[in-house]
């Protein structure tokens, strides 16, 4: 067995990160041009309603992809059920605002709490599973929660919930941006502390982590709860922003595929990879999703992308593997070898 040292293929990632950085600066500053003060200063008008929608959506996926990265990328547990956290966060805010007349700000504070508690409850049994078993079980949870909510009369069932309209594009944009910044900050903190080392150790080899003293159950459940809280926060903001929620728009399984693709393509297990992946992929998706034939192409494109990702990433989407997995012939050969046994 000869072991050659391969430097990680950074060119692709650098491109992602560079593009994302420029986009981010634009995203943060452009809305200011639409304020009265901005107009008085004679700034060029950089934004319109469509722009806000796009930018807010992109920021939302930055949250989802970064949150997924904490459990899928850092801990190595490929969750296909994170969308349940999004939906639960959205419904937490939705129910409190629409049925209990809570102020939105207060209701939003609970949007991360409910999904995190849910993650605690399902995490303890689910995170005992590994690889494909965990992926499938988490997918089941993702689908089931949406179905349950869809059938609960007190939650509006299939009619959904309507929230009083709050007209402020700037508010929702900056809220979502703040959530995205929080997701990145949380990831940064994790990567620079003991906790992060524990998650990486679990990802690399769970039994080896256990015998050096990592409380693996606690770490895995905590990682899932953090991911759930961040995802739920995005859901809570989405509920008020969209003013209408139902099973279809807050529990879509496509979101799960998208957040995984974003994190994996951008660089699972890294700080900015999921951000770059989310920005790039979501812009592509929004551009393609003009409707009609374009929408169909975008669905096909996503499917192909997922397939290509699965082929090129060793051992499929399951084993997310930090530095090891990059698009490369080496990875392709290895994955073919491993799938053919």
């Amino acid at each position, binding site marked *: 067995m000869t072991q050659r*040292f391969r430097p990680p293929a950074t060119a692709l990632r650098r491109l992602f990160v560079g593009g994302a950085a420029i986009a981010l600066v634009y995203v943060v500053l452009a809305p200011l041009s639409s304020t009265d003060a901005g107009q008085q200063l004679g700034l060029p008008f950089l934004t319109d309603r469509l722009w806000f929608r796009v930018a807010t959506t992109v920021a939302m996926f930055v949250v989802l992809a970064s949150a997924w990265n904490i459990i899928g990328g850092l801990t190595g547990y490929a969750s296909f059920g994170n969308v349940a956290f999004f939906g639960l966060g959205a419904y937490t805010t939705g129910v409190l605002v629409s049925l209990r007349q809570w102020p939105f700000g207060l209701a939003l504070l609970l949007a991360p709490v409910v999904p995190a508690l849910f993650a605690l409850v399902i995490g303890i049994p689910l995170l005992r599973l590994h690889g494909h078993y965990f992926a499938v079980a988490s997918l089941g949870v993702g689908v089931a929660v949406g179905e349950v909510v869809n059938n609960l009369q007190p939650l509006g069932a299939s009619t959904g919930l309507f929230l009083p309209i709050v007209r402020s594009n700037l508010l929702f944009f900056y809220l979502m941006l703040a959530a995205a910044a929080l997701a990145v900050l949380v990831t940064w903190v994790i990567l620079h502390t003991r906790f992060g080392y524990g998650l*990486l150790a679990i990802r690399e080899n769970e*039994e*080896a982590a*256990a015998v050096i*003293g990592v409380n693996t159950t606690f770490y895995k459940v905590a990682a899932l709860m953090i991911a759930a809280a961040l995802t739920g926060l995005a859901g809570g903001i989405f509920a008020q922003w969209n003013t209408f929620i139902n099973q279809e728009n807050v529990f879509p399984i496509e979101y799960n595929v998208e957040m995984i693709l974003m994190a994996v393509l951008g660089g699972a297990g890294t700080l900015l990879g999921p951000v770059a992946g989310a920005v790039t992929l979501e812009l592509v998706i929004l551009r393609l999703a003009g409707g009609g034939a374009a929408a169909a192409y975008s669905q096909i494109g996503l499917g192909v992308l997922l397939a290509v990702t699965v082929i090129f990433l060793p051992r499929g989407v399951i084993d997310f593997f930090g530095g090891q997995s990059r698009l490369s012939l080496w990875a392709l050969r290895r994955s073919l070898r491993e799938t053919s046994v």
Partner: protein
Amino acid sequence: MSQLAVRGVSKRFGGVAALTEVTFSVEPGEIFGIIGPNGAGKTTLLNCISGLYDTDAGEIRWEDRSITGLPAHRIARLGIGRTFQIVRPFGSMTVRENAATGALFGQPSGRLQPRQALAYADTVLDLVGLAAKRDYPVRRLTVPDRKRLEVARALAMRPRLLLLDEVMAGLNPVEIEQALDMVRQVNRQGVTMVLIEHVMRVIVGVCTRALVLNFGRPLIEGKPEAVLRDPRVIEAYLGERYARQGGPDASPTQADGEGGGGAGQ
């Protein structure tokens, strides 16, 4: 008073009795050898002690308390470190980070921060001879170096008991001498050791006592020289070839090596 006491431990996998009523004890400061043919249950025994497997019967006591059924991370923090026969490095980390994780999570006293753990990693990497390669990614390490890294990561936990599972298999004679020096040095610092080895020179060279396992059962226990001369052992473990050649030093040592992967190794 024994530091580690294994009493009547049994473990089955379906129809396979991997361990049957294994009993032995290790005194503080000892280097205790465990030998036995492939599949005798040596790795399974380590997995039971370190908490990766639940035992079906029996009790394991450590420093006068029962650790039977405790989760692996609790046992680790009570001062028991181990290595894996089939090495299990954290692949995305550097050599230094690998060793640092041991210090970060395994040290019984107090919590280290990553920076302190990395500094502590340097001292153990020095001890196992990996200091010059501390910034390598694990992928660049040779097999012997990976075995050293296993030891370094376990040592970084500051264990009072170190369980080594065939860390010398696959090493050449010079490397074995270096490894033996390392074992003696660690032991001099007060670390009790349990060594699983096929290399007879290792057992005779450093072990205070040795236990022979055969088909999951203890066959004989005693002074290494005496144990290795016992006809039952020669028959069970070393085979006729060894008996013909005679004497511990003549033993072929690479019977097992890196082969035979499998769960729990």
